[in-house]
């Protein structure tokens, strides 16, 4: 499909945060540059136009599928880029704030920098590629909704914050870097791959779904039971991993009378909360705390 490219370059730093949900292939497709410049963006209770904050150049396609949107500059104070997009392409050449690609259902969104929290919230399809780090609640459900990410692919080159894949129902999240606490909490489907390290609470309260961890985990959930080693296909490669089923503290559906558990694959894991690894972890924490509260150089100690 022949795509037209429209480029928006931010020309003014918002004093508060700018809410720009109009900026997506769906929001801009079929519009002239002047029409785009007149589209609303919001800051607090005030309404401005895209033209107030962005230089607009290029052209749009007739439909979202035929439209590529490139947003340039430091977007770290711009929210909602790519929200609800259903087709086409959006490239963010810089850091962006919250809700990047939230509720998207199709198309391809590439964030070349970091993104803040709530990226890919309620994702229904499409591809979200983040070349930097992602904040908390990547690919999660909106507050209160038991239906989180339904389908689609999220790929992060850097690290992610906490609460990745919260209430995930489907789709795939691949993280090249590390993950903070609470991965796949309450998941009922979907797959999360972490190539770096995780902290704790992997698959807590998971009903169904898959988590694959190539790195280390600090503390395992007590409801995960080792069932043996398996060959697992991880993003194109085949790796032998320890397989766990769980969360045994959660309800599980049955198929033909057999419960279907969540699966957790770890490349290398200590038995959950073994005394030795816990002692080591506590010792590390004590050292770190001492270092933080150590008196500055040159002062007398208390």
């Amino acid at each position: 499909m022949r795509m037209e490219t429209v480029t928006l370059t931010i020309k003014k730093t918002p004093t508060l945060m700018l809410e720009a949900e109009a900026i997506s292939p769906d929001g801009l497709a079929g519009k002239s540059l002047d029409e785009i410049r007149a589209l609303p963006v919001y800051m607090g209770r005030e309404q401005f136009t895209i033209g107030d904050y962005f230089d607009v150049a290029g052209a749009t396609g007739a439909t979202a599928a035929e439209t590529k949107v490139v947003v340039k500059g430091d977007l770290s104070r711009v929210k909602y880029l790519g929200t609800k997009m259903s087709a086409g392409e959006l490239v963010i050449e810089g850091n962006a704030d919250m809700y990047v690609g939230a509720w998207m259902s199709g198309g391809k969104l590439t964030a070349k920098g970091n993104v803040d929290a709530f990226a890919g919230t309620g994702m229904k399809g499409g591809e979200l590629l983040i070349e930097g780090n992602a904040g908390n609640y990547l690919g999660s459900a909106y507050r209160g909704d038991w239906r989180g990410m339904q389908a689609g692919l999220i790929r992060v080159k850097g690290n992610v914050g906490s609460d990745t894949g919260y209430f995930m129902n489907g789709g795939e999240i691949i993280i090249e870097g590390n993950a903070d606490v609470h991965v796949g909490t309450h998941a009922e489907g979907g797959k999360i791959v972490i190539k770096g390290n995780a902290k704790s609470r992997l698959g807590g309260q998971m009903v169904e779904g898959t988590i694959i961890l190539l790195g280390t985990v600090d503390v395992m959930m007590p409801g995960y039971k080792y069932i043996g080693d398996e060959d697992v296909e991880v993003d194109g490669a085949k790796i032998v991993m320890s397989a766990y089923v769980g969360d045994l503290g959660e309800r599980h559906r049955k198929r033909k009378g057999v419960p279907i558990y969540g699966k957790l694959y770890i490349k290398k894991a200590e038995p959950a909360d073994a005394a030795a690894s816990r002692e080591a972890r506590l010792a590390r924490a004590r050292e770190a705390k001492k270092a933080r509260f150590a008196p500055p150089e040159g002062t007398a100690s208390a």
Partner: protein
Amino acid sequence: MAKTVTDVICPFCGTLCDDLEVQVSDDGTKILEVYNACAIGAEKFLHSQAKDRITRPRMQQEDGSYKEVSYDDAVEYTAQMLAKAKKPLMYGWSSTSCEAQSVGHELAEAVGGVVDNTATVCHGSSLIAIQDVGIPSCTLGEVKNRADLVVFWGCNPSHAHPRHLSRYSIFPRGFFTGKGHKGRKMIVVDPRNTDTMKMADVGLQLEQGRDYELLSALRVAFRGEDLPDVVAGIPKERIYEAAEMMKNARFGVIFFGMGVTQSLGKNHNIDIAIMVTKDLNEFTKFSIIAMRGHYNVTGSGAVLGWQFGFPFATDLSRGFARYNPGETTSNDLLRRDECDAVFVLGSDPGAHFPISSVKKIAHLPSVAVDPHITPTTEISKLHVPVAFVGVEVGGCCYRMDNVPIESRKVVEPPEGMMTDTDFLARVRDRVVELKAQAPVGTQSTAEAQGA
């Protein structure tokens, strides 16, 4: 001749005792004595009569000192500040009446502000958990009349809710609990050996920050599955024992507080505690209740709920209410420089927020409405003293179990002192005037958020 006001509601904590008796002077201006309150509650009444009580607004000067100004000046300053701001944060609300909260909401709607209350650093995580998994709960009288097993998880009522155990949870002889505390078992879970834990039948002193794992282990035990030898520092035998105790109770209840709402995982800890409670309802009757702190934070959540649909962190800037903790919560707005004015009423963020947030408040246009001098008033540009709700003016308050009780006026406020409601109403009316005269910037008119 002194007279005694009975059935007085204590305006301090979420226990909201309503059996206080306050002896006042015949002319209704002096509090002589307070009966039945705990030490904290009694002090709330007695301290309101302190001789150095601030009775008029104070404006911060160039050199950092404060100069007295009139209430008229205070109204004008506040109205101008809020009307000019593009996204003012209106925070607090937990130590005032529902009537005041409601007028505050009218004001917030008129200026497109964000309304947030102390849950944002307290039980907000509980509210988030309830939004994710619900909550099987009951009123405090149910605990009094039926409970034979009480769990205190991550809270220390001996210090924070001193009369809780005697009025509701451990000592009272209720309809089905004639033996009082002798017919009740108490489990306390805390990383510290607190005064509450010292009273417990079973004390689980877990590894700090691992409540989620221990709660999960209980659920594993309920389902008869295997546990690792030790979880969160607690040996599995003790976990199985605790699980059996809970399953075999006739009516159990879990009370919980900051130990779990503000430690690692926050809302997830409460979420899984709620799921533990739900699981237990397959074996017996179990409920869970949040130990709310301020005496009317629950009320703020209730009024926000029925007027806008969310219990805290409610953003009104776009003409329809929006909510997402992490984005619309006070500390996140301050951290990210997403608000340009701060209005505080009925709480003390100067004392309770991270210092980085407090610094932001100090550098923004800010107003603090509070009877006392507090860390918040001392970094705000304007300090407006008001009458004490529940002491000098009545108003509806909601207890930790959401029961609404009307607080009373016991004494007259100092001469000429305004109430929260009056001050807010005057600011609101002035803001409406200002907005009508010269619309500052264009008000948002979009129909829908997004395509």
